[in-house]
């Protein structure tokens, strides 16, 4: 079976700072991969390299078997048009730590915008999809509210609906609950659990160890730009082999 995401020998540096070192990763269809590790370990950067929000310095990235990035010492080894980049992005839905909803649009408009602008759907079609998705995340009654009138948890659920509206095959979650008040974390995790149950392929950078344990099919521990340990959640959490993993888990659990 072809991996949905394949990352080969990826390095990424910001100037002299090396933030990803020789990352190799395969994500199969239906996998829920939880990436844990201390701040600054490169978790978010790894996600952002998949949909071109950051460009890798060297290595190769494949999405559904198709090569979408090949670079060597910061130089492209393969030409990628902006059109192609946009196409890749529609395969990958992304949810951000700070939601990044469009503040000048209502919840419904937020969800409708990309299907209309990018996929050129008619307004009524987009609206039907958007209403369905808002219902799925439990916010149908908030469709006409602007983001500033919604709680953090509600905003993040709208953001998930917005990403799903492009019918992505893979969902990237970049610390989706880190900016939320503790009592609002649960509602967002519930929506994510539903998605996982439906078989969505997910990469989740998270500090929610409970979620990783319960929903993750695989857990990756990153530290200092490297994948230090990788395995089934029960193995990582109950029997970590790497010393750094052990130290980290001791602190957060």
């Amino acid at each position, binding site marked *: 079976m072809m991996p949905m995401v394949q990352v080969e020998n990826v390095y990424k540096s910001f100037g002299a700072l090396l933030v990803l070192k020789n990352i190799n990763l395969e994500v199969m269809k239906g996998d829920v991969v939880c990436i844990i590790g201390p701040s600054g370990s490169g978790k978010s950067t790894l996600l952002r390299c998949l*949909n*071109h*929000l950051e460009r890798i310095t060297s290595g190769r990235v494949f999405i559904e078997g198709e090569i979408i990035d090949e670079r060597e010492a910061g130089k492209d080894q393969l030409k990628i048009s*902006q*059109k192609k980049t*946009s*196409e890749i*992005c*529609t395969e*990958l*839905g*992304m949810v*951000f730590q*700070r939601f*990044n*909803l*469009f*503040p*000048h*649009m209502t919840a419904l408009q937020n969800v409708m*915008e*990309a299907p209309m*602008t*990018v996929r050129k759907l008619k307004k009524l079609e987009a609206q039907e999809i958007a209403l369905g998705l808002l219902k799925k995340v439990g916010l149908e009654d908030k469709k006409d509210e*602007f*983001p*500033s009138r919604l709680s953090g948890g509600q905003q993040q659920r709208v953001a998930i609906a*917005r*990403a799903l509206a*492009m019918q992505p095959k893979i969902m990237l979650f970049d610390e989706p609950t880190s900016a939320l008040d503790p009592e609002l974390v649960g509602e967002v995790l519930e929506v994510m659990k539903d998605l996982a149950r439906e078989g969505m392929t997910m990469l989740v950078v998270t500090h929610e160890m409970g979620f990783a344990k319960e929903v993750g099919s695989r857990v990756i521990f990153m530290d200092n730009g490297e994948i230090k340990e990788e395995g089934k959640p029960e193995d990582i959490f109950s029997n970590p082999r790497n010393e750094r993993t052990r130290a980290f888990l001791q602190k957060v659990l």
Partner: protein
Amino acid sequence: MFDLIQFIPRLLKGTVITVELTLVAIVFGLLLGLLIALGRLSENAVINKFCWIYIWFFRGTPLLMQLFFFYYAFPLFFNPPLKGLTATVAAFIAFSLNSAAYLAEIIRAAIQSIDKGQMEAAKALGMNYGQAMRKIIVPQSYRRLIPPIGNEFIMLLKDTSLVSVIAMTDLMRVTHEIESQQASALIYLPAAVIYLILTTVFTVVFEKLEKKYSIYE
């Protein structure tokens, strides 16, 4: 003391010209200013530099000199020299190009003040740069643009009085003519009142606009 009433039609004629010039300059200034602002944000070094030079030139030289340039010097660049470039056309050009430089900087600052996460969210949804700008970034900058553009608008309205020196019969020129004929400076009072009424109208309109675009905040 002279009878003010009889001069009102002439003053109003001058007012129409003043308003016309202001509107033309702000409309063309906004269109051109948006292009220049986008050019200043562009990663293309040539476009970026060109727009930088444009702003540098039009902000760095007196508006009055630019006005003289387009009225007297500009026609000489043509062979045979351009005849009949009226004061009105010269003023339209000079004021539009000048206000574009100021408005470009206002627009650029407003666009740059939009949270970076907005462009990232748009790109992650598959929008290209143009779509993201048009649908997401520029609309959000409107509300931030309104106060400084209102300011620019009012300054422009008053600066149009400069055209009286190239024989354009705007409100200022008309007032001055009446003053000479009547040998009475009192005519400046009703003229000042007309300027005040105009700036008040614009102030109110811009306050309304600001409210309208604040609904989502």
